[in-house]
């Protein structure tokens, strides 16, 4: 039986590894961090849209399925630094703090995922300059009882509970100025979910979402959007947040209410930036080491988007999940299973 190398220990990589192991293959899973679970664990995602189900309910069983399977060898804190050979025999060098080892694999699955967009580039939003301008992943950590604030929503500047909160959509997405003209696919639903969570935690607070379009295409997302408006009185304003300044020690945002055709200024206590999705360092590294094609934005390009979505430009190297482009957790798991099936059927032939 051939061994499969899976690069990346996020949801996609974990699912692919456990599915392959379940079919009897030996799997080596390489993860650069010293924990499994990828961005979900790194940013302590608290609840998942649209059911507001704890993220742990989903990620823990996926991690457990890998850790408890004796066919899977997990290399934490490791990186694949060199790959030689062709399908179905690749030689990969895996490096960790202790040293390097070389192993032979029949196939390679790249599931290196994404990283949250760093909004410091959008200097007009004041992220990094104003303490109370935070990203959605920071809010996720805040809402999590295991996070730095023990589940309390607090302003970073003075630790007070914010009364008025604005959420900016499309930060680093649908934006040519930062080179990311694509949609992040998850910002709308995550912001709506966070708005509901904030309203549940502090019913007195006012939550405003500044959006361009609400793209609620996923399972139950549109219903969640309706719930946010009807049951939680979250205010959705059509107009993209344009600028943040400090006025009398309070954050002041500028936007246009595009439905009413009027520019507005709005004083709030805290601003959450729905930072988009960018190709991570891991994905860019993997593309370099493996010599596989990327698209214009650094994500990995499938051989054929429709017909072979999980095959890279090189035979024997497979790609799956958010390293191909923005994707939600639900679909990452689907991708993990899909790539496992493709690898298994190709190795058999």
């Amino acid at each position, binding site marked *: 039986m051939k061994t499969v190398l899976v690069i990346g220990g996020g949801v996609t990589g974990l699912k692919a590894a456990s599915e392959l192991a379940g079919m009897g293959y030996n799997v080596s899973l390489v993860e650069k961090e010293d924990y499994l679970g990828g961005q979900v664990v790194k940013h302590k995602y608290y609840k998942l849209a649209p059911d507001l189900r704890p993220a742990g309910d989903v990620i823990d069983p996926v991690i457990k399925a890998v850790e408890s399977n004796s066919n899977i060898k997990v290399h934490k804190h490791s990186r694949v630094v060199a790959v030689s050979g062709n399908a179905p025999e690749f030689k990969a060098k895996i490096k960790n703090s202790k040293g390097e080892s070389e192993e032979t694999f029949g196939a390679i699955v790249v599931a290196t995922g994404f990283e949250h967009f760093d909004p410091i580039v959008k200097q007009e939003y004041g992220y990094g300059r104003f303490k109370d301008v935070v990203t959605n992943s920071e809010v996720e950590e805040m809402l999590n009882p295991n996070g730095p604030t023990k589940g309390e929503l607090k302003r970073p500047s003075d630790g007070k509970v914010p009364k008025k909160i604005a959420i900016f959509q*499309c930060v680093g997405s649908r934006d*040519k100025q930062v080179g990311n*003209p694509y949609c992040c696919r998850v910002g709308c639903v995550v912001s709506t979910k966070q708005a509901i969570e904030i309203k549940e935690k502090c019913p007195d607070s006012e939550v405003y979402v500044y959006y*361009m379009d609400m793209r609620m295409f996923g399972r139950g997302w549109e219903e969640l959007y309706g719930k946010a408006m009807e049951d939680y009185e979250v205010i959705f304003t*059509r107009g*993209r947040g*344009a600028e943040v300044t400090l006025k009398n020690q309070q954050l002041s945002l500028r*936007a*246009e209410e595009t439905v009413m055709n009027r520019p507005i200024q709005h004083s709030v206590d805290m601003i959450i930036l729905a930072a988009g999705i960018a190709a991570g360092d891991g994905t860019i590294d993997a593309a370099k080491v493996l010599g596989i094609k990327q698209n214009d934005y650094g994500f990995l390009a499938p051989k054929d988007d429709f017909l072979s979505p999980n095959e890279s430009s090189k035979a024997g190297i497979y790609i799956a999940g958010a390293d191909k482009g923005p994707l939600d957790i639900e679909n990452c798991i689907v991708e993990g299973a899909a790539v496992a099936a493709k690898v298994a059927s190709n190795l058999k032939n």
Partner: protein
Amino acid sequence: MSEETKNPITEKIESTKGGHFYKEIMKDFRIKESLHGCLNCGTCVANCPAAAFYDYSPREVCQMIIEGDEETIEEYMKGKIWNCAQCYSCKYRCPKENSAADIVMAMREIAVREGLAAEALAGYTRIAKLVLTRGNQLAPDMLSPDAFPDWGPRMIELSSKKMEMREELFEGFPGMNVVDRAWAAEDYTIYEMQKIWEESGALEKVGTVFPFLVDIVQEDMEDKAEEMEAKIQEKKEKLEASKK
């Protein structure tokens, strides 16, 4: 009820796109670089200093060009586009890298050419007249209390002593001791400048906005013509002599 009840709903039956002004605008190379579709996100309006105070919206400018309705374009060329301050904030913030400021600039040029700008630019008549007859566009005289209701007593007092102040400030520079223009250019220089405007066709263009100013300039030139032409002749002869 009036004789005809107007239907409040705009009924789109025939396309209103592709009229003369629309075609003229689309011919300009700047439009292609300044309009790549519009997300209607409002970032431009939120950042626009003109939109904060006037009836102007860079988003509307983009949408108007995309729609291309001839009547709306004409209306804009006569009015709203002249409210833009040309600061280009829209260009540097637009997530689609559009530039309403560039569209406005192109439209302004076309509006002048097509004779649509007269009303919008009427407020600049004094400046235009000063440039055309004196060679500079501002004069201390323009800064008077009746034009600036927000001035306090000190500014009013200072403004009454303009001439004395300039005489003191520019001692030994007689050309600066004037208040009806920024500085006094020689008659000969002004005549030369007017001649350039006339020959290059710039004066004709000014005529589309300020027709009466053309008469003023031409009269001004006629008054001086004899004397100035003699001076030109004299200079030419001098030049010839120096060559020999």
